[in-house]
């Protein structure tokens, strides 16, 4: 089974209930005459555990030892609004702050958390045994952190049901089925209805009416029914309900990636006009930002700088970084270099820096490979070079897929560790021996050529220091043309000529204008 990576995952359950559910719930509140409470707090927390049947093997999910073998698949926790009392219903609908606090509590324990409908939060607490002790101890820690109901169980569904059924802390890591045996059937009904209400395409749940007519009252009774007979009478829904009654999970935990903003802002007492004092402000903002990124195991893939100026305008700058990085000194240097190239129009009043987080880099260095500049070093170097010579005038050359004479482009520098075999072939117009390199004149220099017997006999050039004079040797012509379907087109005859002084050049004659040019010198 493939375990999805943290960043591949997206929340499959919406955080906001559908509008019709909200409307009906608010109608219920109005009917009961419920008044908006003045203060809300997190209501309940529960915990649950093992992956679904046929799901991840304990070794695949990296579960620590400490629990029983059955519980070793991972222990998860959730918070749950259990009773649908008007106060709690209002809390579930309106008090996002309580849910956020509950999520914050859960995130303090594990990065693998998932929000469930009705304000539930499930989190994977596998691996916490070495830090916090056994499952009961973990549950106590959660309760002390502010969770009102905590349940720990081998599966998510078991934990959800236990949390809805029992007050306080409930731990069942050894035998989930036994723990659920006496749970009322109505708890499962509430859980299923909550899930269906939050689903994109909700399905009607009719099986519980039939189960009620059969006289079933607990989950143990439902789980004890013969599976084939139940399926024959209730269809797929019967099998699904029985699996849930046994604590089976319909799907694995899908961690919520969370949307956390890494942002720092500073309002200055006096406007800043120069870069030097601004660097201290950057340091003050970037140090805590880098610390927060490090705590979250993240790096900044882009920096958004917003400068509010004294002329009441906002000057935004966005700095795309080649790799996630969080070294505050590097980030400060890059920001300063960027502002050096693009200075604001007025003095600065407020500085705001926001970092786009990305998973941190894991780099394995080798003693056997040649060191190359680190991405941080390279980014700083390119920023400095860009400020010195221009951003478009430094990079790695890339050969374009064209037969044009000077067909290349500059790409951003990204040195990797892979060695590539270069076959020495080129798509250029005149493939030359490997012992030669051309020194190109950009743009080509116009010359006057005396043609003798169809070949260049003498080259006259007005520019000082350029090769010219009687031609000793000439080879050619090589005809080249292309690009007639676009604005950049060429049609020319190329010659290789050697002068008396020893210089060897490449000439070409534009066949449309008849003008001769020196394209470069072989060197």
């Amino acid at each position, binding site marked *: 089974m493939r375990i999805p990576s943290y960043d591949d995952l997206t929340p499959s359950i919406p955080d906001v209930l559908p509008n019709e559910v909200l409307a009906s719930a608010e109608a219920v509140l109005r009917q009961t005459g419920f008044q908006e409470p003045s203060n809300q707090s997190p209501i309940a927390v529960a915990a649950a555990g093992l992956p679904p049947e046929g799901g991840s093997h304990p070794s695949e999910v990296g579960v620590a030892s400490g629990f029983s073998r059955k519980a070793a698949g991972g222990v998860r926790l959730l918070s749950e609004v259990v009773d649908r009392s008007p106060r709690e219903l209002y809390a579930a609908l309106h008090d996002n702050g309580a849910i956020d606090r509950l999520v914050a509590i859960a995130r303090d324990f594990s990065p693998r958390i998932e929000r469930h409908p009705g304000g539930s939060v499930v989190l994977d607490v596998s691996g916490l045994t070495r830090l916090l002790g056994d499952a009961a101890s973990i549950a106590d820690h959660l309760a002390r952190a502010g969770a009102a109901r905590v349940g720990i169980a081998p599966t998510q569904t078991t934990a959800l049901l236990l949390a809805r059924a029992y007050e306080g802390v409930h731990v069942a890591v050894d035998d989930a089925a036994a723990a659920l045996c006496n749970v009322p059937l109505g708890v499962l009904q509430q859980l299923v209805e909550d899930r269906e209400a939050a689903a994109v395409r909700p399905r009607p749940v009719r099986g519980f009416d039939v189960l009620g007519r059969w006289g079933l009252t607990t989950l143990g009774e439902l789980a004890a029914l013969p599976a084939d007979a139940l399926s024959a009478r209730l269809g797929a829904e019967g099998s699904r309900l029985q699996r849930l009654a046994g604590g089976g999970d319909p799907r694995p935990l899908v961690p919520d990636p969370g949307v956390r903003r890494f942002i720092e802002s500073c309002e200055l007492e006096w406007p800043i006009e120069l870069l030097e004092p601004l660097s201290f402000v950057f340091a003050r903002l970037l140090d805590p930002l880098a610390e927060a990124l490090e705590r979250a195991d993240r790096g900044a893939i882009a920096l958004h700088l917003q400068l509010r100026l004294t002329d009441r305008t906002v000057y935004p700058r966005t700095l795309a970084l080649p790799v996630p990085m969080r070294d505050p000194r590097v980030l400060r240097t890059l920001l300063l270099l960027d502002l050096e190239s693009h200075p604001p129009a007025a003095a600065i009043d407020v500085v705001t820096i926001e970092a786009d987080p990305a998973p941190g880099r894991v780099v394995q260095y080798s003693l056997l490979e040649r060191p*190359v500049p680190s991405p941080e070093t390279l980014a700083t170097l390119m920023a400095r070079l860009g400020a010195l010579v221009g951003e478009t*005038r430094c990079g790695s*050359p890339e050969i374009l897929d064209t037969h044009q004479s000077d067909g290349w482009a500059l790409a951003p520098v990204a040195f990797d560790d892979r060695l590539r075999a270069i076959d020495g072939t080129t798509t250029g117009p005149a493939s030359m021996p490997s012992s*030669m390199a051309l020194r190109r004149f*950009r743009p080509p220099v116009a010359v006057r050529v005396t043609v003798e017997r169809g070949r260049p006999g003498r080259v006259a050039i007005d520019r000082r220091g350029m090769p010219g004079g009687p031609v000793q040797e000439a080879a050619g012509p090589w005809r080249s043309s292309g690009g007639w379907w676009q604005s950049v087109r060429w049609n020319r005859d190329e010659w*290789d000529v050697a002068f008396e002084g*020893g210089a060897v050049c490449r000439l070409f004659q534009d066949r449309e204008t008849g003008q001769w040019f020196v394209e*470069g010198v*072989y060197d």
Partner: protein
Amino acid sequence: MTAARAEIESLLRARRLDVTLTTAAAWRGTDEDRIAATGCHEVDVALGGGVRRGHLSEVIGPRSAGHSALFVRMAAAAAARGEVVALIDTHDRFDPLSAQAAGLDLARVLWIRETGNADRALKAMNLVLQAGGFGVVALDLVDVSAPALRQFPHTTWMRIARVIEGSVTVAVLLASEHVARSPGGVTMALDRPSAHAAEEWAGTTARDRRLRGLTIRPRVVSARR
């Protein structure tokens, strides 16, 4: 006296303080960490394996003598070793197509294109050297006029030599005449015959005449061997 001098020099070398020694005492290092092969057999033979890392060397010679070809070979050899290369191109003369045809992995090349401002090119070289991590860093000054070259104070080159001292970087100046080198660096002088070399051209008639290739005639002026 000779023995005492040799002992002092050996002590200096043991402490890596030998960069200012001018004697041609034998330096037997063949380690790739201290020598970078140029990829040109004649030059490597003359230098005893290659150019010393951590020193400033130069390639000088007239037009079409093979500065660019020698640099491309050095860069290709460095890239093949897994190193990265930087070229500060003062007059924007580098031709990526011919370099790739010579076997250079362009993905391992940082090309800085200047528009003729030698001062700025020198600053760019300084930035690259200070960043570190490059195997070969070349500054192309071939088309810079001699008076402009002489305007650089000698301390400029001493400072550059100081920056790369002890590093794995080979700094190379490409120029038409002697500019500078560090005490451990070499000057690779490329000669160009006044008349064209017959072996460079193939074909017996005017119609099948073609340029076969340029002959590089290197001459090591100062090698610490």
